[in-house]
Structure formats: structure tokens, C-alpha cells
């Protein structure tokens, strides 16, 4: 009995995937669990494994072909077996293995509708004009929505359920903020944006475009005197080397720690806003913008507020390395409540970072600046300053408030002993 492999759904909003590489050819023997091909979806690459042992009977698509989630990729069966003509069509998308974040868009207690209106590429989707408009506004992929209206139509109710199910995830397990709200997940529904680009660039394109269309962004700049923090860093390093620790304590880690404390003190900046719902978070999940050779990823340090400077340093190193090595999964890329981006190494002073969608703030760090300062006694001395740029969503936060956040951050940078209290 042959079995069909379908384009898996990685995360809640994935609607299509690209075939990146075929490991097997038609006629090749495959073992159950053996990778058959690699697919990519935006930032993620994933191997698709054989569901059973047998011969690869048929492949549907070549490298770089884009297929919808649930579309057939390949058929595996016994030697000499002819793939039945129904193999390609009779796929139950519900059986597709889904990630831990996947929540069915439709309520489970609607057995009548289960599986009825998940759509194949060729299916006409019956959806009311209102629901279609709402789905477009919220970047919901209607292919993944089950219609509960008359004749299986997708109605406003169904779209609201999708939106609510996202909100429920957030309340139930706040440590796993709904993937679709996270910056790392993009809205595939803005289909035309990023066309012709690589999956990663496409994702970045959509993400940035979405950010600029959905928010009212404004950036404030301010410098903080960083000499005390540098002194503090030196002191800690001395302590660490004295205790033979291999921990490398970068200024970035200390700035991250300062940011976490500032966010806890000033929660409006540690918030997400999506689908009309503003969520201020007690927990800080810190996104770290990490540049790659041909793009950008934002791995997330979960529960950064619970980490000491030491663990923070380890985790920072860990997540950025994993991002650079491509060892990422949805969990690593999702759930951030605030993001830090550092262009200090590039010699940039101030800039205007673009918000990581659904977050209300992003901190840009520039390169250290040497300045002359007038001391109390009238003499002049050289000091170092660090330029800080805070971009915030003016829909949620006003300028004075954002300035207040910066002040708090500056307080922690200039009084570094607070970082360990």
C-alpha cells in the first residue's frame, strides 16, 4: 500500500513551502524515518522523512517549486506498485504532523465540519466577502480556515475563532507566546511581497513591510555615559578570570541585562499588539537581531528576566550561534516581547530600527563615541558614550513615555551595580 508524503505545515501560518533538495530519486529505496527531501519555508529548512519503508514511486515537483501545505510531494510504496490515481488527491491534511504550536483554527467540537473544508490548491474556497476582508486585514490564510457557515462557507465567526485561538494560546501558556504573533513568524498571506526572492529574504521582506504598514513608528535617540559600565565589565572579567571561568562577558550582555531590567520597570515597552489586543507582559523574551551572510534572524532568549548575567551571556552566545549555523526551529525564532539590534560593530552611531512585528519597541545600539566632558571642577576629561535609539509604536506608546523608558535604561547603564541587585 503506497503512502503519500505531503508538504508539512511548520508553524501556524505556513501556507506553502519550497522544495530545496531531493535526497532520493524515483526508484530509490527509502527507510522509514529517512529524509526524502528538504523543504524550506521562509526562515526554516526542514527534512521531510519517509513515513514508511519502500520505494520512492513518484515525485511531485522539482527543486525551487513552491507547493501549498498539504499538497502531495511524493509517493512511497512497494516495488512495482503503481501509485493509485487517488493518491495525490486523497490526502487528509489533518493527519499532517504539526508543530507544537499548531492549533486547529476550528473548534474541536464541530465534528460535522472536521476536515471538510480544508482546501487543496484546486478547490474553490467558499468564504463570505466580510470574512475574506477580515482574513486579509489580519493576514490570515483562508486555506487553513474551516468554514462553519451555510454550505461550509467561511464566515466572520470562523475568522474570529482563528483570532481567538491565537489569544488563547497566549493566556494558557504565556511562555510560549503564540507563534503567529511573534516577529520570527511572518505573514505568508501578503503573498505578492518578496516574490522572486529567496525564502529568507521573502520572509524579511514581508516582515518589514508588515511592520511599517501596521504600526506608527517613531525613533528617539539618546546617549548614555558608558564608562561606569565598562569599569563594571572589567571588574567582573577580573573576577571571572580569577575563578577560572571561561565565560566571556561582552558589553552587549550587560546592555541586554540593563534592557531587561528597564523593561521590567517600564512594562508598556514590553508589549505586543495584534488583532486589536494589547498584551503587556511580565516576562521578558528578548529577541536578538542577528545578521547572517545573506539575511537576518531574530533568535529569542526566553524568560530573559529570570537569567543572571552569567546565564544571559551563555544563552546569548548559544542563540546567536545557532542562528548563524542554521540550527533554528520555530521555538527559537518566536515569542519575543522586545528586540535589541546592535550596529555598533559597523560604526553606526544612531539609526532607526524597524519594529519586529507585534512588538511595541526595539532598541538600537550604536558604536561607542569618545567625547570631552566638562567636570564639576571645571576641568575637561574624555568619556565614552553609547548612542541608543528606541523605535516604538506610537499607536501604543507616546514620546514622553518612550523617553522615560530611555531614561530608565540610561540609569541602569550609568549605575551598573543595579544590574546585579
Amino acid at each position: 500500500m503506497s503512502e503519500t508524503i505531503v508538504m508539512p505545515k511548520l508553524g501556524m501560518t505556513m501556507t506553502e513551502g519550497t522544495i530545496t533538495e531531493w535526497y532520493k530519486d524515483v526508484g530509490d529505496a527509502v527507510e522509514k524515518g529517512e529524509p526524502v527531501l528538504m523543504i524550506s519555508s521562509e526562515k526554516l529548512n526542514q527534512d521531510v522523512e519517509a513515513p514508511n519503508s519502500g520505494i520512492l514511486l513518484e515525485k511531485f515537483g522539482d527543486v525551487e517549486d513552491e507547493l501549498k501545505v498539504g499538497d502531495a510531494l511524493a509517493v512511497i510504496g512497494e516495488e512495482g506498485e503503481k501509485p493509485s490515481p487517488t493518491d495525490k488527491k486523497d490526502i487528509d491534511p489533518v493527519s499532517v504532523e504539526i508543530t507544537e504550536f499548531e492549533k486547529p483554527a476550528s473548534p474541536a467540537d464541530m465534528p460535522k465540519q472536521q476536515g471538510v473544508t480544508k482546501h487543496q490548491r484546486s478547490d474553490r474556497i467558499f468564504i463570505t466577502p466580510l470574512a475574506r476582508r477580515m482574513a486579509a486585514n489580519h493576514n490570515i490564510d483562508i486555506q487553513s480556515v474551516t468554514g462553519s457557515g451555510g454550505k461550509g462557507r467561511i464566515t466572520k465567526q470562523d475568522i474570529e475563532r482563528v483570532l481567538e485561538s491565537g489569544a488563547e494560546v497566549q493566556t494558557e501558556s504565556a511562555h510560549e507566546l503564540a507563534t503567529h504573533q511573534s516577529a520570527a513568524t511572518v505573514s505568508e498571506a501578503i503573498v505578492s511581497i518578496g516574490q522572486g526572492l529567496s525564502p529568507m529574504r521573502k520572509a524579511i521582506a514581508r516582515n518589514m513591510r508588515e511592520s511599517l504598514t501596521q504600526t506608527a513608528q517613531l525613533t528617539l535617540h539618546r546617549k548614555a555615559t558608558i564608562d561606569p559600565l565598562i569599569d563594571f565589565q572589567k571588574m567582573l572579567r577580573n573576577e571571572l578570570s580569577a575563578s577560572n571561568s571561561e565565560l566571556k562577558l561582552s558589553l552587549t550582555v550587560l546592555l541586554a541585562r540593563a534592557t531587561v531590567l528597564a523593561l521590567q520597570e517600564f512594562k508598556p515597552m514590553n508589549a505586543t499588539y495584534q488583532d486589536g489586543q494589547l498584551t503587556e507582559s511580565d516576562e521578558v523574551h528578548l529577541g536578538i537581531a542577528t545578521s547572517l551572510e545573506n539575511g537576518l534572524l531574530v533568535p529569542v532568549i526566553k524568560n530573559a528576566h529570570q537569567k543572571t548575567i552569567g546565564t544571559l551571556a551563555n544563552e546569548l552566545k548559544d542563540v546567536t550561534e545557532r542562528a548563524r549555523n542554521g540550527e533554528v526551529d520555530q521555538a527559537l525564532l518566536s515569542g519575543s516581547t522586545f528586540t535589541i539590534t546592535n550596529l555598533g560593530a559597523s560604526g553606526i552611531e544612531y539609526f532607526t530600527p524597524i519594529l519586529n512585528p507585534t512588538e511595541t519597541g526595539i532598541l538600537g545600539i550604536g558604536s561607542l563615541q569618545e567625547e570631552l566632558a566638562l567636570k564639576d571642577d571645571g576641568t575637561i576629561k574624555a568619556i565614552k558614550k553609547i548612542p541608543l535609539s528606541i523605535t516604538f509604536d506610537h499607536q501604543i506608546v507616546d514620546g514622553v513615555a518612550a523617553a522615560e523608558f530611555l531614561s530608565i535604561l540610561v540609569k541602569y547603564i550609568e549605575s551598573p551595580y543595579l544590574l546585579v541587585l
Partner: protein
Amino acid sequence: MTERTVTFMTAINEAMAQSMRKDETVILIGTDVAGGAEVDHLVHEDGRYDDAFGGVFGLSKGLVTEFGRERVIDTPIAEHGYFSAAVGAAATGLRPIAELMFNDFVGFALDPILNQGAKMRYMFGGKAKIPLTVRTVHGAGAGAAAQHSQTLYGLFGAIPGVKVVVPSNPYDAKGLMLAAIEDDNLVVFSEDKMLYGVKGDVPEDYYTIEIGKANVVREGSDLTIVAIGKMVQVAQEVAERLNPDGVDVEVIDLRTIAPWDQETVIESVKKTGRLIVIDESNPHNNTATDIASVIADKAFDYLDGPIKTVCAPNTPVPFAANLEKAYIPDADKVLRVADEIIEDLKKSHVM
């Protein structure tokens, strides 16, 4: 204002009487609007008249006694003739109320409305006005069969230059009748005979209700039902019956079917996303289909389901009691038709 409870018929009678007291150019003309003309024993010693009919339903009873036969004019059974006369009189300074006993008789009265009254002002470059109120009677339910039970207000409503008012209750009937008489245009005032006995609070004072404005009689967020005349009761019943399911129905009494209040209906549909129109007319080329067409166009992006029109079937009005009952739209029929667009609303509240 003092409030009393009077019938639909009395409310209309009172409106006519008040306007006739206020404006001596208002006349009532029609077959047997008084009845008993030139019957000696119906004449009082002081010269006042009693009526024999006061309209075939007795609606205009008493008017001839107060206003005399010069202003409450019985005509031969000659609809074309007296409707032409009413248009001619309206064009030249009177403000007639002309009664068409049953709207089914419009066949004999149509030309004066269709080709004369509705078009004169336009054709004459705005140099005429036709302040004519056409009172007529529509609706099935009385066992009056195929030629006395039709619902034809939509036919009038299709004519440019004609306004059509369909009241659903005694309060509206009086206010709309006074507004119709005040209006300087040809207004058809179509009364459902099944509402004649319905009682309601009606102030004694003179008041008007704006023509062209619908009335939101029940606010709701899930489903809009637009209903006309007698069908407003049906809409209310549907709303009550859906209430336990948590379906929150908005009921709009259209009041005027030409020109109908697009703004109110569109705003409601923008809120609810779902629309049912109940109209006792036959199902094609009627007010309901017109509303459906306009909403499908102007509120397309707000629709969360197909627009449903609930009308009489595409048949003449049958005579037999059970057939006639099956003919008239009722709450069961609305719920049957509406099920497709509200089943998901019901589910959502069960969960």
C-alpha cells in the same frame, strides 16, 4: 401628548380628519368612501350626511358627516376616471386623497399614476406638483383570493416620481399618512388589510413621520432583518425565537419602500454582516430583490453570508385557507430560509 390605544384603521381615519380640518384643499375621493349617496334617510335635518359604508372596510366612517359630500366624494366604480381626476385636481391646487379599494384594481387605475401623475412635473420642467395621496389596500390572509389579496406596493415603487409608504402599526400609520398628505408628490399609502384591527398607542395630536426613513425597531448585532408592513411582526417573532440561541437580531421596519432608506440598511448590514428581507410580494422584481441588489453592491465587503429574501411564492394568492397560509411568509419560513446564514451563529453560542 396624550396617548390612547386605537386601531390601525382609526389612526388613518384620524389622520385624514386632522389634515382635512387643517387644509381645506384636502379631499377624499373614491368608490363608496362614504356610500349611500342620494339616499334620503342618510341625510340629517341640518343637512349633514351619514355614510352607508365609509369605505368598504369602514375606515373612512364619519368623514362625510364632518366634511360633507363636497370633500368626501363617492365616485362611480370607474377607477381610471376618478384617478385621472385626482391627478388633474392635484396638479391644479387640490390635495386629494384618492382611494383604490384594493390594490388589485390598479389595472384600471394605473395610467393616471404611471403616465400622468408620476411624470407631469418632470415633463413640464418642474412647473407642476402633484400632491396626491393614493390610499390602497394590499395583503393576503383574509381569504379574499387572487384578485383581492395581492401585495403590489413594489409595482408602484418601481415608478420614478412615486413615493410609496407601507405602515406597520397604528402610530406609524397616522404619522406617515399625515406626512403623505403634506408631501407635494404622488405618495402611495399602502395598507395591509390584516393590520386594520391591530391596536396601538397613537397620540391625539397632529404629528408626521419622515417619509424615506426606516425605523430600527429592535437593535441587534448578528443579523439584520428588514421587513415591510405586516411582515415586521414576523421579523419580531423571528428575533424572539432566535434570542434563546444567542442570535441577536436587528429588525428594521422599512416604513417607506420608495425611496427606501439605503443609509439605515447599509449601516445595519455593516454592523451585522447578514441580511434577510421579508416582503409579502411575489418573489421577483420586488422591494426585497431591490434591497438585496443594492446591499450586495454597496455593502459587499461587509456581507458575511448570502442575502436572503423571504417572499410569497411565485403564484397567485390561493383561496383555500391552508393554501393561503402556506402562501404568506411567516416566522417558520423565515427560519427555514435563514438557517443557512445563521446556523454558525447558533453554534458559536453553544460552544
